[in-house]
């Protein structure tokens, strides 16, 4: 990490930086900037040949599965509710679709990249 004094037109600015070359963080005047190599960006929702796979955004516990395989869902419908840090976070359908598979159980602790629901 570093605390850098950058000069512009004779005026001094303080920028705080930290992290690696692939994932660099900076703080300046109350704002945070993060620059990452493209493949490090998180994808909470990925497309696999026309199918949508939804993952948990963070380590969490599945508290409710609101849909079943084969069910038609509309954009914005709650599919799964996960709980982290005592707050419930609904995972909603990104588009009108059909539920292809449910890959988690209620009560299960899931990691961020774990596929929870598959839509098509």
């Amino acid at each position, binding site marked *: 990490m*570093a605390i850098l004094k950058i000069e512009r037109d004779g005026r001094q600015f303080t920028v705080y930086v930290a*992290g*690696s070359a692939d994932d*660099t963080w900076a703080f300046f005047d109350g704002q*945070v900037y993060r620059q990452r190599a493209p493949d490090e960006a998180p994808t909470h929702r990925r497309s696999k040949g026309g199918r949508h796979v939804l993952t948990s955004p963070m380590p969490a516990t599945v508290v409710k599965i609101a849909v079943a395989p084969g069910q038609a869902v509309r954009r914005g419908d709650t599919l799964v509710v996960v709980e982290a*840090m005592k707050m419930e976070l609904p995972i909603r359908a990104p588009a009108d679709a059909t539920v292809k598979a449910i890959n988690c159980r209620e009560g299960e602790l899931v990691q961020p990249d774990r596929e929870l629901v598959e839509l098509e």
Partner: protein
Amino acid sequence: MIRRLLIANRGEIALRVIRACREMGIESVAIYSDADRRSPHVGAADRSVHIGPAPATDSYLSISRIVDAAAASGADAIHPGYGFLSENAAFAAACERAGIVFVGPPSAVIAQMGSKVAARKLMQNAGVPVVPGDTPYDQTDESIAAVVARVGFPALVKASAGGGGKGMKRIEDPSQSLEAIQSARREAQAAFGDGTLYVECAIDKPRHVEVQVFADNHDHVVHLFERECSVQRRHQKVIEESPSCVVTPRLRSRMTDAAVQAARACGYRNAGTVEFLVDVSGGRGTERFYFLEMNTRLQVEHPVTEQVTGLDMVRAQLLVASGEPLPWLSPSITQRGHAIEARIYAEDPSHGFLPQAGRLLLYRGPRMPGVRIDAGVEEGGEVSVHYDPLLAKVIATATTRDEAIARLSCALREFPILGVRTNIPFVLRILDHPKFRAGDVDTRFLDTEGASLAQDPDGEIPDVVREAIAVHRDSLESPSGSLNGEPQTANREFRDPWDHLRSWRS
């Protein structure tokens, strides 16, 4: 007098209590889970006891483990902090049975106030106004939905055992009733182990104003004025201040009288907070206020009150728990200047406020006059997903509200936290909002304005930031740089000349 105090908590509040112990010559005992072995509160205490694995249910929420830890470490008292077991009557009762002083009210008072339904009844009988509503005897979804329909929309379903907005849902129209009731019950069951719900009518544009009370065993009950906490996101407070800009001297005297009356009615002891909703829609002079709930513990936002009264509330808690009279009584307690607190959370406002986890690559609290930081983390530390994402509280104190806001804003602009996203940019945008500046904010402010305030403005990365990132990346790649790979700990490389001097000497 208490000789050795176990703090049944973690993070900033554990540190706050440990410091009060040190000033008073009381030995402090920290407890920690597997996730907190290296946390600051463990390092700060005189002794520490490991109490279990990371999940709170097996550690900070385990009554038996904590009472055993107190006995094993020879502690004669337990301070519960806030959250976790602080408002758990069974925990207070377990302490009482074990002959350990519980720093808080008697377990019976916690139980009574912990049942929001029982608290409403008690306050009604004591002549304190309550929000119109009803408690369904039949707790089935259908029966609660029927009560919601009778109370009218918008309505709130709330957990009888609740607090902090957990197990509480707002219902705008009948189509939302069932999902809201089920979700509220699940949250209530998970957070409090009790899914009982009640229904209140939602007051239009209410302001959240609470009164700090304090009672001892010598028949003294005092108030320490009000705090306003209307800036809330999903019922979690974000900004708190004292005094409230809508509370006139006349309203203040009515509200503080009601709060003292409420504390007397329930036989209260130690520090507590009486929360009210204030309806100012009728204009000055016609304000109405309603009892919301009583919090039977020290509040997260207690520093705001400490700043405007100049009193040490944790010290008073420990004195009162030891059986001493309150160290200060009414005429001498005054409210001076203005204090405002922002809660800094590890969360990403621009992505739905998702709680963040990770290592604090860089963390430097601002040091400036009139700014107090109560923090529970330090640089190099790990923020885990297991607990509340509160990192620090920043409290600015000044002569007027405007000056206090300017001071807080200045402090947050000089509070670099890197490695996890925080809500600092979001809080800065709230502080700049014309409605907030004008004091024209009710508890729904963030429901309506929050979404736009949460988004980082699209725009170019400032020039100076680009340059700084480039310089940093160069230093990572250059063989002379001390950082080849991931920076793991603090104090590796600084560009500041003074820091270079330090590293030459070491």
